[in-house]
């Protein structure tokens, strides 16, 4: 056996594999060990990470790549150049399951994203968009990565024409906040750092009056439904009737793909629909009410309960106290697979 071997003499194919397995923080330390390893770190792919993203606040941008968080820098050409310099010293490529861009409205954002993401691979790019110009920038980034899957949180309601021009998304969330962006930052911070979906936080934000009903009319909603696989709505579409709601269920039920529509609303907005379907406060587990089967009725304590209904191939889950008073918020999930409901 050769007793004089050192790691730097190992085959390149092995070193490349090894460097795909070490974390970003280990890469930072490895580049301090010796000149050769500093070069290996810079010239190898960092591998795959489940999640990454950029966040912007008060003129600064910060970034998370796998296990490493890069502190905020000023959103200037000089600051971004520094960012790119360190990226170039840390890896020559990287892949993400999901990468979140909090989209900025400036032209610098587009230039930066195009440069920064050179040699990046994404399964899903998730955009967080708060204004019309940011949506324009997001659409341009989508055009750059045409073969990637996209999802988007829209924290405002764009003009109808613009809303309908958004290409098909894996998931679209549409909600409006009544207050400034601090509320949004809070939601996003929880979303990003704790990996929690903001959608589950809607009832809490509603109760604080932070999220308004989304003024999307039912005709527009049906067009969105034909395009996007999963839709989260901060409210019920305007002018939607009980038969419209049933039509949504029929569309989702007949789709072979996994589909979900989730709407957060006041419980008093869904109660008339349930009664129209034949489901009342007296319903019990196993009851058949018209075309609906009651799989689960609310249990005590009512604030953390849920109702589960079945309509054709649809599961309808109503999270929250569905038979509560007017200020009680519920989330209605309509899905064609049990996992999503």
């Amino acid at each position, binding site marked *: *056996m*050769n*007793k004089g*071997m*050192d*790691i*730097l*003499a*190992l*085959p390149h*194919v*092995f070193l490349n*594999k*090894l460097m*795909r*397995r*070490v*974390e*970003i*923080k*280990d890469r*930072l*330390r*490895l*580049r*301090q*060990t*010796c*000149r*050769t*390893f*500093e070069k290996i770190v810079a010239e190898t792919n960092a*591998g*795959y*990470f489940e999640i990454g993203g950029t966040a912007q606040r008060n003129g600064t941008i910060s970034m998370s790549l796998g296990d*490493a*968080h*890069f*502190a905020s*820098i000023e959103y200037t050409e000089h600051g971004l150049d*520094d960012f790119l*310099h*360190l990226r170039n*010293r840390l890896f020559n490529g990287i*892949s993400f*399951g999901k990468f979140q861009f909090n989209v900025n409205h400036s032209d610098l954002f587009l230039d930066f994203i195009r440069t920064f993401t050179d040699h990046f691979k994404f399964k899903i790019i998730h955009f967080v968009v708060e204004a019309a110009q940011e949506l324009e920038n997001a659409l341009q980034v989508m055009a750059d990565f045409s073969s990637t899957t996209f999802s988007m949180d829209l924290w405002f309601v764009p003009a109808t024409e613009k809303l309908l021009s958004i290409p098909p998304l894996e998931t679209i969330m549409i909600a409006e906040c009544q207050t400034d962006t601090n509320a949004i930052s809070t939601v996003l911070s929880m979303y990003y750092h704790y990996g929690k979906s903001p959608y589950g936080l809607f009832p809490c934000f509603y109760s604080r009056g932070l999220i308004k009903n989304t003024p999307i009319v039912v005709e527009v909603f049906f067009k969105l439904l034909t395009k996007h696989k999963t839709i989260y709505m901060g409210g019920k579409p305007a002018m939607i009737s009980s038969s419209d709601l049933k039509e949504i269920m029929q569309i989702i039920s007949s789709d072979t793909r996994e589909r979900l529509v989730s709407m957060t609303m006041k419980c008093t907005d869904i109660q008339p629909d349930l009664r129209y379907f034949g489901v009342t406060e007296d319903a019990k587990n196993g009851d058949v009410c018209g075309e609906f089967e009651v799989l689960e009725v609310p249990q005590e304590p009512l604030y953390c309960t849920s109702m589960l209904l079945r309509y054709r191939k649809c599961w309808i889950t109503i999270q929250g106290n569905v038979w509560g008073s007017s200020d009680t918020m519920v989330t209605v999930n309509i899905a064609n697979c049990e996992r999503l409901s």
Partner: protein
Amino acid sequence: RIYPLMRVTLTTSDGASVTVSRQLTKHSGFIEKAITDMAVDDNAVPLSAVAVDVDDATLKLVIEWLTEHRDDALPYPEKTDEERRADDIPAWDQAFVQKWDTKEDQQQTLYAVITAADKLDIKGLLDMTCKTLANKINGKTVEEMREILQLECDFTEEELAEIRKENAWCEN
């Protein structure tokens, strides 16, 4: 089609000969290609010897690993998206690596097996040794990494200070 009873003689870089079953060598892309290149009838027994650029001691370890993994599925599954995971080394493999004598020898033996796995194109063994080394350095300090990988620091103080300054942006 592989004939489990068919045997292949391997000649090592230090002149030894080892005869093994095709059931083991089917996991080595290099040996399989060598046999294919001989253009002999698969039923021909014995085959001509295949020369491998691996020493006898290392080849014995490789054969020990191949024997344990003789029933592993082929082709070896490419797991590009899951490559980061390094905590799924089978218990037998962990014990296999751990039994290699003293600390220094263990590292040298590991490097020799890695090189052999690469030369013989045994993807499963290369993967396992890669995970083993990644686990050794993950979460370690710079000094510990130098010690584990037996590296000499060849930076000047100024260069090291510059790298630390760049890293501080991320490490805080």
